[in-house]
């Protein structure tokens, strides 16, 4: 059996797509690639039928088994807090942890078991983490601040609407930014999210048809409230005593902020409040620069002691964030006029249960620390769009989309078979349409496209166009006309190419309209129809010629 070059192209593209979709080690990708190529080779060169069937079965079994055995074992690091010890020791997002303290890690559950069962020694825990590339050993007295997940079987990434997370579009209120200022804003925003402890972020400037520019922020695993407070804020932090500014947030006045060290930062004093809920206090130290410390001395110099409570000064230190008072602190009498570089900041959180209150306080502390470290933006921000999706609903959607795909697939198969009553033709259509979808997915994972719901609609619509085009080819070629088969298929291709260009032209404006938020829909459709016209349709026409002969 000889294959035409068009069918060869299809086989090659298909195997590349498969490899880019599956998350396999490179060496095995090469092996599987060779095996896939072995299929057409054996089809071409092995003449004996029994031998051919045997070799095809062998190749198929190998292709299926190799991925099953070679998916790497362990858990993948999805985020590491940049302020954690693990981070400074070199652990990064994307690494694969295979062993901790000599114990094999096969799932996130294993990971948490080992972490929790590690015994503390003199107030800190020792961790010996073996990743696929390196070994990290460290001691820490706080939580690890690492999140892990099972290693994904594929390289496909789903959009936030299917995987859960939040997306915000922000723009400065009342000012328009040039490209430099916009990239500053990108930097500050990414930094804030990183300092806050989220590394899986995607921050990029986007612009729309009429030239408005926005900042688009996509974060997995964050609540809309957190996102709103982290990126929607100007972050103007001021510490004032009797209306004079002592220091502001940012590196000019603040040299460092104590974070993951229980001796100078933490939540404490959880108590019941009068309304039946709970509240917790937090405190952390900040270290001021020389100039800010001198300013503190100058300002407090002229303040008298509080007559009713002479342990403190009569004026308080007011902490103001974006023109709203966060807290006001007593200033100890001994600090009057002193050049002090260490200041303790405090605040509180509340909630229905003690745990809620603790978490609220911890979260508020983390946000305040973030703002203090990253400093303020020179303008106010406005959130113009905010979407969030819960991971559980996303899972439900993904499951339903897969069900839907299967049902649609079965329906299309039955309709095609009912019409043509020929297994070979039906199979050929189904195989080409499936390979089209697979190639589209392959390209999507190659360009690391996040597949959101509209993108999946685009893939399905592309498959629909595929089926339609195949019907055109079949009907042209089986018509009882006198023209040669070649001529018939040529005419079919004219119709198909015409339809391709119209859908291409029609979807093109979506790349720019609405800040490109619907780009996924246009992109997957266009990839699908382009793959159809360039790879699968020509191959299908050849396969059909073979069947007709």
């Amino acid at each position, binding site marked *: 059996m000889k294959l035409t070059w068009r069918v060869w192209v299809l086989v090659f593209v298909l195997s590349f797509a498969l490899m880019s979709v599956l998350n396999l080690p490179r060496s095995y990708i090469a092996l599987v690639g060779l095996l896939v190529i072995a299929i057409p080779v054996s089809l071409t060169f092995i003449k004996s039928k029994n031998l051919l069937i045997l070799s095809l079965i062998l190749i198929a079994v190998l292709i299926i088994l190799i991925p099953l055995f070679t998916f790497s074992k362990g858990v993948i690091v999805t985020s590491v807090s940049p302020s954690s010890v693990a981070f400074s020791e070199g652990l990064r997002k994307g690494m694969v942890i295979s062993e901790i303290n000599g114990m094999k890690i096969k799932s996130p559950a294993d990971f948490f078991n080992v972490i929790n069962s590690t015994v503390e020694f003199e107030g800190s825990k020792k961790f010996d983490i073996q990743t696929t590339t390196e070994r990290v050993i460290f001691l820490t007295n706080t939580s690890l601040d690492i999140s892990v997940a099972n290693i994904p079987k594929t390289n496909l990434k789903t959009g936030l*609407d*299917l995987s*859960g997370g939040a997306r915000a579009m922000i723009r400065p209120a009342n000012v328009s930014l040039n490209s430099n200022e916009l990239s500053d804003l990108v930097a500050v925003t990414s930094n804030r999210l990183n300092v806050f402890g989220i590394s899986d972020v995607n921050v990029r400037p986007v612009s*729309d*048809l*009429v030239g408005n520019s926005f900042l688009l922020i996509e974060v997995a695993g964050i*609540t*809309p*409230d957190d996102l*709103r407070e982290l990126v929607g804020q100007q972050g103007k932090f001021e510490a004032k005593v009797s209306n004079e500014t002592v220091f502001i947030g940012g590196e000019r006045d603040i040299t460092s902020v104590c974070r993951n060290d229980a001796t100078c930062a933490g939540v404490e004093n959880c108590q019941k409040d009068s309304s039946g809920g709970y509240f917790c206090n937090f405190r952390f130290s900040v270290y001021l620069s020389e100039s800010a410390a001198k300013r503190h001395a100058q300002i407090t110099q002229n303040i008298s002691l509080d007559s009713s409570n002479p342990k403190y000064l009569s004026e308080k230190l007011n902490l103001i964030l974006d023109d709203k008072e966060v807290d006001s602190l007593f200033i100890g009498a001994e600090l009057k006029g002193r050049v002090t570089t260490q200041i303790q900041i405090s605040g509180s959180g509340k909630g*229905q249960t003690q745990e809620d209150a603790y978490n609220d306080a911890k979260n508020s502390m983390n946000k305040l620390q973030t703002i203090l470290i990253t400093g303020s933006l020179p303008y106010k921000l406005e959130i*113009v*769009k*905010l*979407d*969030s999706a*819960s*991971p*559980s*609903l996303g899972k*439900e*959607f993904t499951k339903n989309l897969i*069900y*839907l795909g299967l*049902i*649609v697939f079965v*329906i*299309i198969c039955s*309709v095609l078979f009912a*019409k043509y009553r020929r297994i070979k033709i039906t199979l050929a259509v189904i195989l080409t349409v499936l390979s089209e979808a697979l190639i589209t997915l392959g390209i999507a994972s190659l360009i690391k496209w996040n597949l959101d*719901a509209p993108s*999946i*609609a685009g893939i399905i*619509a592309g498959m*629909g*166009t595929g*089926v*339609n085009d195949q*019907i*055109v080819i079949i009907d042209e070629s089986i018509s009882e*006309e006198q023209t040669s088969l070649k001529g018939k298929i040529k*005419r079919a291709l*004219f*119709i198909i190419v*015409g*339809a391709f260009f*119209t*859908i291409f*032209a*029609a*979807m*093109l*404006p*979506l790349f*720019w*309209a*609405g800040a490109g938020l*619907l780009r996924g*829909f246009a992109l997957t*459709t266009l990839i699908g129809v382009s793959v159809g016209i360039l790879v699968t349709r020509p191959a299908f026409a050849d396969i059909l010629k073979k069947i007709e002969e």
Partner: protein
Amino acid sequence: MDNQNTTQDPELVSENIKKEKNSFFKNFNYNKNYKILLVIPLFLLILSLVYLGIFYFKTGDFIIRDVSLSGGTTLTLNGNIDSTQLESQLKSKLDDVSFRKLSDISSGKNIAFIIESSVPPEELEKIVEDILGFQLKQEDYSVEFSGPSLSDNFYHQLIIALLISFCLMSVVIFFLFRTFVPSIAVIFAAFADLVMTLCLVNLLGIKLSTAGIAAFLMLIGYSVDTDILLTTRALKKSEGTLNQRIFGAFKTGSFMTITALVAVLPAFFIVTGLPDSFRQIFFILSLGLFADLVNTWLTNAGIIKWYCDKKGIK
């Protein structure tokens, strides 16, 4: 089909099955009646245009916009929530609020409850939390918020995109056929598709989202493929009579559209718990496909037939 069929195409005679299928069309004289058939879609189109005109006069817009195009918040609460109390309390607290439910395929249980309102998300979250009596966690809900100015902006851009898309499609069609009347026929059919679909969307009271308008762009591309098929078969094929060619194109084209239609139906009747954007795209495409059946095989076919008769193409 006309009665010349049997003499002109001997292969048709030999196939009894085909003969039976064609018997209806034999009794129906397409040559005489195609102009009458042309009146039906024209009437529908005028009706749709009048309806849209009245709709615009009443509401100041051609569509009903959802919060992604008009500004506001959509809050989706996960799980099987007893919503009767929530609904009544929300109605008393907010002026403009609407509700929907999503349910699972296999169990039929409610998986989510959707609240839409024009208030900002912080406010809506707080009101809902107050009624429910607990704080919402990330797992519990999804929120979508669009600021009013941005949504307005998006809306206008998408309309511009729709116009550009239509123009680009027209250019491609003119380039393909390079003759005036057949090209205009295809473009006119696509236009009628859009108008009728929009009319159906409004009649059903569907609120359009950004994804919905994107679906209209796709419809522009999707609906013309049967028109291209028809025009190519009618003009570029030399064998058989014109009627046979049109009928042949109809058999292929309607099968294409019907396959597509049965493929989108499960998204509404079997699998219900799907993302809104996804459902809306599919829904508009299926309405558009219905309109396409009418506009390709009555409007476009009629014009092509008329054109060929005038030009003497047999």
